[in-house]
């Protein structure tokens, strides 16, 4: 039976795969999508993957799929799953290899008219000052002991060691540091991989984009976030580099072996999981939190070098201020009302962004009247969005929204039959300049490889999960 016959329409933006769809499902899947987006999602195996997630032990509420969903490993990208902290499981695959991969948006006191004509200068300067691509080593030199402090203190350690300004860390999810991180639960290998890479962008879909605010849709929230039309902002997309990848690898190996002991079976081995309270589960969470702290420190380091680059090109009066920093690969303990009962759950966000509504105590005071900022980077050369969390997110999606446009084409399919010079020319004609280490890097991330970001954002806006605040347009991109 095809997906179109199995999916029940709830309304124009919500669809359900009922739990009787497949043996082993403990709950429904709810997909947030418009009909055209749903048709795109149904082309790969992501719906089947969301149904597999519904089989996890102790899953609370439905297995959720955001409109940017696409096929991942085990878990779909754009998936949210909450598990009970007492009798549910924790799954490293539900967080991903790039632990606390996330997005930070930085505003400047510059206008499009000032930066536009000098876009090449600033891109070249950033390319020199912010280590990116596959080169590896960064400019932040930390001793093994310092690295342990980074793993414990996250962005705050960077700020107190000269890599940033006092308010930077405050304007990050969780203040840029998760409690309960334990550096001893991060292997020596993970530390060896991560130590030279602190403050580096990485490669793949990681990037740094100079954008201008094209249009404001919610003036109250835009004012709170300090953005207005024509203003230059910079979006940073990076994660926990080799350190996070190794932490996930290490615990995946442990859990793959330990599942038998706990009598757990999964439909795909990448969904390997153990009970949250188990020794293995708690060790993973302590290591994952340390890796998450590394990622916030990493984006903080990048912010510091970005400031230097802007000051070199635009002078000492240039000011860069962090608007906010959100993670989109994480597992966090949070409390929600589920079927009338208040429960503590472990929310796995795999390619999904936290989107807390106004008055939530976990968002900075400056934003409390308007909701938490949520950043949705679009594909290279199109547009990105600033959103603000709404009460619907807490009521329905464990405080989560989408995290991007979502891939449509595989990386190889994106490259096939496309000419780099033509892609570059199209970008330049649109007034966008690109700097990338590799040719494949640019071709892989062409706009056609992604869903329409406006359409994706429209779904979460209309579903009452997060509202549109501002649309951003790129001027220049550094591809990792």
């Amino acid at each position, binding site marked *: 039976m095809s997906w179109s016959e199995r999916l029940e329409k709830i309304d124009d933006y919500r669809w359900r795969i009922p739990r009787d769809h497949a043996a082993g499902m403990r709950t429904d899947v709810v997909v947030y999508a418009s009909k055209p987006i749903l048709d795109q999602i149904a082309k790969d195996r992501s719906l089947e993957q969301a149904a597999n997630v519904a089989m996890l032990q102790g899953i609370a509420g439905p297995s959720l799929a955001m409109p940017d969903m696409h096929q991942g490993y*085990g878990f779909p990208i754009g998936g949210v799953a909450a598990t009970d902290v007492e009798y549910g499981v924790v799954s490293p695959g539900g967080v991903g290899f790039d632990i606390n991969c996330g997005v930070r948006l930085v505003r400047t006191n510059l206008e499009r008219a000032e930066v536009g004509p000098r876009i090449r200068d600033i891109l070249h300067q950033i390319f020199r000052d912010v280590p990116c691509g596959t080169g*590896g080593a960064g400019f932040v030199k930390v001793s093994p002991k310092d690295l342990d402090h980074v793993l414990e203190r996250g962005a705050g350690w960077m700020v107190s060691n000269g890599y940033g300004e006092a308010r930077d860390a405050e304007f990050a999810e969780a203040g840029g540091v998760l409690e309960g991180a334990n550096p001893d639960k991060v292997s020596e290998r993970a530390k060896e991989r991560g130590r030279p890479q602190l403050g580096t962008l990485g490669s793949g879909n990681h990037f740094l984009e100079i954008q201008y605010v094209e249009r404001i849709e919610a003036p109250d929230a835009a004012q709170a976030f300090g953005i207005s039309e024509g203003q230059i902002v910079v979006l940073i997309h990076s994660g926990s580099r*080799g350190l996070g990848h190794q932490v996930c690898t290490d615990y995946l*190996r442990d859990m793959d072996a330990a599942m038998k002991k706990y009598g757990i079976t999964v439909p795909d081995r*990448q969904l390997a999981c153990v009970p949250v309270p188990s020794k293995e589960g708690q060790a993973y969470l302590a290591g994952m939190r340390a890796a998450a702290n590394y990622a916030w420190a990493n984006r903080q380091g990048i912010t510091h070098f970005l400031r230097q680059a802007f000051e070199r090109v635009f002078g000492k009066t240039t000011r860069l201020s962090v608007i906010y920093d959100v993670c989109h690969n994480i597992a966090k303990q949070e409390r929600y009302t589920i079927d009338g009962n208040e429960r503590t759950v472990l929310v796995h966000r795999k390619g999904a962004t936290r989107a807390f509504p106004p008055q939530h105590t976990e968002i900075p005071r400056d934003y409390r009247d308007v909701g938490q900022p949520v950043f949705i980077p679009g594909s290279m050369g199109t547009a990105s969005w600033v959103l603000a969390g709404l009460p619907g997110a807490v009521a329905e999606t464990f405080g989560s929204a989408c995290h991007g446009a979502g891939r449509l084409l595989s990386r190889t399919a994106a490259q096939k039959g496309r000419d780099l010079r033509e892609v570059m020319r199209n970008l330049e004609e649109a007034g966008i300049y690109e700097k990338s280490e590799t040719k494949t890097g640019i071709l892989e991330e062409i706009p056609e490889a992604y869903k329409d970001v406006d359409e994706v954002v429209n779904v979460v806006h209309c579903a009452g999960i997060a509202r549109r605040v501002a649309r951003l347009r790129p001027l220049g991109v550094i591809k990792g």
Partner: protein
Amino acid sequence: MIPYEIVEHTADVGFRAWGETAAELFANAARALMEIAAGDAENTRSEQITVAAAGHDYESVMVNWLEEILYLFDTGRFAPTDFMVERIGPESMSARLIGEVRDPARHPWKVIVKAITYHQIEVVERNGRWQASIFVDI
């Protein structure tokens, strides 16, 4: 018999590998991984190191073997160009890696491979022929 082929995946990449023996399969899987990660980097010197990996079935031994290679490459300890599997079983293996200490200038990443996944993993012997299917996260 072709040693391996690269397979597409929406966000990432995978490969299938084959071998007359388990030892040949594991060597071919390592070659496939290095083609994805490094392309055809040439070595000017030939050094050898020995690598061991363990697990609780052929799939987990395979993942841990490929992870060893990634770790050596990412940390700059070694850039392998060829692989000789000396001992192989469902719980452990060992192999010699031929190559040299990695010089990032001469052995750049082609694509940073974050990790080896267990997604739809398969390592089997079928009709006297070994084959594996692996996805990697990039």
